[in-house]
């Protein structure tokens, strides 16, 4: 055995030995790509200020994540791009007149308080971007609860709906985005383009968006509103406000939504129902961001309740099991 040259010793790793190329970074990059039409439309509608907001917010979010992890001597995770996505999505749900410094404050809250304090990516239980927005609207309500375009304060379509007065925008205007509103929410067309990309790239599944939007639509059609045609009421509710954007980009946030298949549908229905509850009876004209934050808190409970049928156990088996358990209980009681 002496004449044997160099003896190779190989690594031993767990199976499988091959993995998909689609890693966390690529998923986050896909989300950024999917928001491009929305950002583009925002710049077209509200001017270059939007681009400045987006860039500075993404930079600030990445900086806060880097600084926090650096200070606490944890591994640097900015490569996964999740912080950049949070910075980007925060701008999408803010009105166009938001000053840059305010967005940076929101980023700090979203990244440091909501995300990193709970352990970073995948561990936070609230959607960071929406929590950041909730924090900002509570802190600077005078600036952020209205929409100002070119120095003029405009009422949003949802504001008209809340007041019960006729909406001065046609459905086509609402769909394509010729309405006032938050930067990312106005053009349903651009949002759907982004959603198509995300679903085609398998970044998200249809379950959550469809159940959110479907529930809102069903409740609107079922209950309607005096002064509006049922379909007009339904379509304005779906297209003009935040339902489309938050339902597709926010409700599908991985860390804060259920992972079980039936759980995702339950969660989507919950968001839709809460949104309409707020819109019908609450003080806000809008409601989806709070609906999502509330449902975020239910995520783990939903996951625990929504298991799929075990492989090899038929429905008949399950019924038999349940009957046996019941009989045993009765036995024990008597």
């Amino acid at each position, binding site marked *: 055995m002496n004449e044997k040259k160099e*003896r*190779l*010793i*190989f*690594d*031993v*790793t*767990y*199976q*499988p*030995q*091959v*993995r*998909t*190329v*689609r*890693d*966390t970074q*690529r*998923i986050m990059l896909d989300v950024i790509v999917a928001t491009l039409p929305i950002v583009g439309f925002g710049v077209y509608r509200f001017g270059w200020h939007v681009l400045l907001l987006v860039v500075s917010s993404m930079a600030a979010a990445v900086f806060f994540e880097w600084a926090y992890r650096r200070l606490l001597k944890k*591994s640097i*995770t900015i490569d996964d791009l*999740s912080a950049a996505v949070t910075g980007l999505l925060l701008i999408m749900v803010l009105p166009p007149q938001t000053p840059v410094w305010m967005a940076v404050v929101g980023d700090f809250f979203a990244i440091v308080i909501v995300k990193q304090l709970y352990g*970073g*990516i*995948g561990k936070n239980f609230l959607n960071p971007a929406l929590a950041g927005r909730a924090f900002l609207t509570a802190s600077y309500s005078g600036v952020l609860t209205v929409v100002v375009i070119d120095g003029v304060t405009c009422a949003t379509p949802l504001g008209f709906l809340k007041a019960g007065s006729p909406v001065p925008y046609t459905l086509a205007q609402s769909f394509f985005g010729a309405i006032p509103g938050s930067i990312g929410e106005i053009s349903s067309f651009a949002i759907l383009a982004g959603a198509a990309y995300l679903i085609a790239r398998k970044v998200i*599944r249809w379950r959550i968006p469809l159940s959110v939007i479907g529930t809102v639509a069903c409740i609107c059609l079922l209950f309607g509103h005096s002064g509006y045609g049922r379909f007009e009421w339904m379509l304005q509710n779906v297209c003009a406000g935040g339902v489309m954007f938050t339902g597709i980009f926010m409700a599908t946030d*991985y*860390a804060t939504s*259920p*992972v*079980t*298949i039936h759980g*995702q549908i339950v969660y989507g229905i919950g968001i839709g129902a809460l949104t309409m509850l707020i819109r019908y009876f609450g003080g806000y004209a809008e409601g989806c961001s709070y609906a999502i934050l509330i449902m975020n808190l239910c995520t783990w409970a939903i*996951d625990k309740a929504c*298991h*799929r*049928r*075990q*492989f*090899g*156990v*038929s429905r008949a088996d399950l019924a038999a099991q349940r009957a046996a358990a019941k009989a045993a209980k009765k036995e024990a009681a008597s």
Partner: protein
Amino acid sequence: MAFKFRGGVHPNYMKSPEVPVTVMAPPKQVVIPMAQHIGAPCTPLVKKGDTVKMYQKIGDTQAPVAAPVHASVSGTVVAVEPRPHPLGDLVMSVVIENDFQDTPELMEPLTPAQLKDPEAILQRIREAGVVGMGGAMFPTAFKIASGRGKVDTLIINGAECEPYLNGDHLTMLGFPEQLLKGIELARIAQGVDKAYYGIEKNKADAIALLNSHDPAKYGVEIVPEEEIYPQGGEKMQIKTITNREVKPGGLPAGVGCCVISTRTAYAIYEACYEGKSVVERIVTYAGSALAAPVNALTRVGTSYEYIAEQCGGFVKTPRKLVLGGPMMGICCTTLETVTVKGTNGVLFFTEEEDRTVDEPVCIRCGKCINVCPMRLEPTYMYLYYKKRDLDMLEKYHVTDCIECGSCTFRCPARMPLTHAFKTAKLMLQARAAREKARAEAAAKEARK
């Protein structure tokens, strides 16, 4: 026909069926391990200095779950000693110095009458050392015998859903007639009227060729299947063809099915019609450390070092040596190890195939749940594994995991999921054993 199972993934197939099957020249020395099946290892029937012939039986045992082993070359036994085994341990092996004569010692081919007799076929399957050649190496004769009376459907697994591997596909293309005859024999031995041959649609040429040989004559129906991993998993194959689900912890026979692999059916043909025992098979050698993939008919007991030489040597230094396909294959540490009956591929991987990361963090994307063919929830199972919460792991049915690796393949965060579940299953087994021992001790105490 052809139902669907939920989940599954689409790995990059990297197949190379266009590479013709070559015959790998037998090495100077072969090392035949005595354990080439699940169950009790065989006892060597030869000793140092003995002359053996090719196909000669050199190891056997009386244990019911076992298959004898045979010499893959003719020559002289130079040692009977423990040698490295693909599964990691040192295993008693017979080392044979090749005389390059390949002097055969064949069994008598079965007579036409015997070819109709289930007992004769079963006896021959055992004597020829046929085992599950898809990789599990379960003794085929025992599988068929234990399923008698329960099995109503025989399924031949031709999915070959693992990336890289081509052995089954090339067997279908090269020996369609023989393969169908082998399936017929398995069907007769099992005592059923019909066998279903599930083949993935990516092997359209093989499906067409087999259909042109009138499979109905042999009582075989070809079922084209969706191209998805793990289509070739036993439970998935049963679900796809019969829409039955194997019970948790149960055997395929529990739902009236018996699944054998393509190469096993071919081995049954060779054993019965030609009297040959299992001493060689088509193995795929691939990976980025090799210049090009090779499909070669290789003798059992050939060392990987010799194989690497025959394949033209390494163009890059390999970092990993994977036995089997890349999804379920296991790593091997040294080139001294040899091929066994269940080796369907040997992959020499470099950094190129490696996509592990240092500190994986779950992002809760839920893709593992979407792809799990057993409808499990890997995300949560991993959390409970981290907490070593065995009760919850049991509640989340970790014991149902078939270790197909789909969740880990699809995980964007590169979590070591399959590995965790494998470990969890071992921990549960150990706990059950401990509890049993404690109960026995308590019972003993009580008797005193």
